[in-house]
């Protein structure tokens, strides 16, 4: 039982990083991304590959994951972030599908079999194989990520991002370099998702494309929407709830998905701005500008 709770706590931590990162794109900068799991996967594969082939220690592998995922985010963001909401949604959706197919078909990613035998982290003389030690590693990483994002959204950069979300043209006219901000935040979010991927790969020690498909992108999105866009505390809450809730519904067997979906819908009808979101603006990107 304790092992199971530890397992859920570790997964929740990884989802917190994913949710907080996509919240920067959606909740703060007001852009859409339906392919965030692709960066999660890119990070996981990058980290696994450099550990397996070149025996990178975990910290170096995690940094590689962030770098590779971040670069992919930059490469996707540069040409596409001038697109408006609906189009950006489709492009990121397509990106997610393509990346998933790439994992599935490439030789060195192991195809549908994935990559087994990823070494668990062991550095600074500590072997992180026991789950409670791994949980500490995840918690420390989550805290660092939270401190970073809090400081970011609390700084004048955060205000610039919210200005872009509320009124992009006005933000430009006021001297905010909106294209640069959008690309940078997209890159940062991709890098953080890559970090989450690295934590996942070295915890489970086996990855395959299934984990990083569209359903994961949607799950992360649901976590942000549930917790409240534009609220970091909301992202944490959303990630924790949606990690635990499906497990609690396990006794309901066949009805699990049904109850899960129903609860989500009820919550969004009751509180469309999410649990900790502020104001009605949080769902703005789903509406058309009138």
């Amino acid at each position, binding site marked *: 039982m304790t092992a199971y709770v530890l397992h859920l706590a570790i997964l929740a931590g990884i989802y917190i990083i994913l949710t907080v990162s996509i919240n920067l794109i959606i909740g703060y900068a007001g852009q859409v991304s339906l392919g965030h799991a692709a960066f999660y996967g890119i990070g996981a594969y990058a980290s696994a590959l450099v550990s397996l082939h070149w025996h990178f220690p975990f910290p170096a592998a995690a940094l590689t994951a962030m770098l590779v995922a971040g670069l992919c985010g930059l490469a996707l963001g540069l040409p596409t972030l001038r697109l408006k909401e609906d189009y950006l949604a489709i492009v990121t959706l397509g990106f997610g599908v393509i990346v998933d197919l790439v994992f599935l078909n490439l030789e060195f990613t192991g195809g549908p079999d994935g990559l087994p035998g990823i070494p668990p982290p062991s550095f600074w003389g500590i072997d992180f194989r026991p789950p409670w030690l791994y949980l500490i590693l995840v918690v420390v990483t989550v805290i660092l990520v939270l401190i*970073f994002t809090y*400081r*970011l959204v609390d*700084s*004048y*950069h955060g*205000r*610039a991002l*919210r*200005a872009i*979300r*509320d*009124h992009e*043209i*006005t*933000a*430009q*006219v*006021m*001297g*905010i*370099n*909106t*294209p640069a901000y959008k690309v940078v935040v997209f890159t940062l979010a991709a890098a953080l998702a890559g970090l989450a991927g690295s934590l996942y790969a070295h915890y489970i020690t086996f990855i395959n494309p299934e984990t990083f498909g569209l359903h994961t992108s949607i799950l992360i999105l649901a976590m942000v929407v549930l917790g409240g866009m*534009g609220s970091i505390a909301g992202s944490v809450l959303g990630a924790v709830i949606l990690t635990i809730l499906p497990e609690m519904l396990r006794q309901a067997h066949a009805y699990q998905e049904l109850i899960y979906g129903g609860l989500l819908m009820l919550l969004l009808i009751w509180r469309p701005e999410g649990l900790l979101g*502020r*104001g009605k*603006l949080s769902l703005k990107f789903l509406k058309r500008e009138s």
Partner: protein
Amino acid sequence: MLEVNGLSKSFGGVQALTDVSFAVAAGEIVGLIGPNGAGKTTCFNLINGLLPPSAGEIRLGSTEMVGLPPYRRARLGLARTFQNIQLFGGMTVLENVLTGYHLHQQVGVFAALLPLPMVSRARAENRRLALEFLELVGLGGKEDEPAEALAYGDQRRLEIARALAQQPQFLLMDEPAAGLNPRETEDLMALMEKLLPLGITLLVIEHDMTLVMGLCHRIVVLDHGEVIAAGAPRDIRRDPRVIEAYLGREEDEP
């Protein structure tokens, strides 16, 4: 200060502006008037860089601005208020003004993320300045209200405060008196007069003739995308082409 030279803009087959030229000297309030659809807001959008011109030059000071993105023009000291108020609705009144201060952050891009004393000092200083601007436009004490919750007239003032926080040399105001009652318009005129001593030159689109005639040093009249008259208010009032553009030509009696 601002020099517009041979500015033209066409949208497909529609010629919105044709060979528009005028200049605004430092310290002036110039009115840009004309019937609806004359091309006034298009002219602003070209000056701002929100649209590329089909031809022509726009110079602020000695800098040619055509080709520069809007945020670079803002750095040259150009600010703007909008015809339909464009506040950042998800922010408080104070945050809106602080956003105007974005250009003048003394703290570096990365330093802003660190818990340094200089960061908190800069924050306190920005806050103090922002409160001053709010005081100036008459919104003192409302800094923590959500911007969306303000009354219409107050939203207009907030937009001006936010533009002032950019500390511009040149301010474009697109129908600042639209939707205001006569009292509020009077307050607005008093406020606009306070801007000149701050070293801000104004170009104002406005339909309210009390404001235009009472405040503007010079007036440029657009009709069908062309400048049909320019000069002092009393001359413009009597200009037959202006009267014709606004009222139409009198048919000769048969």
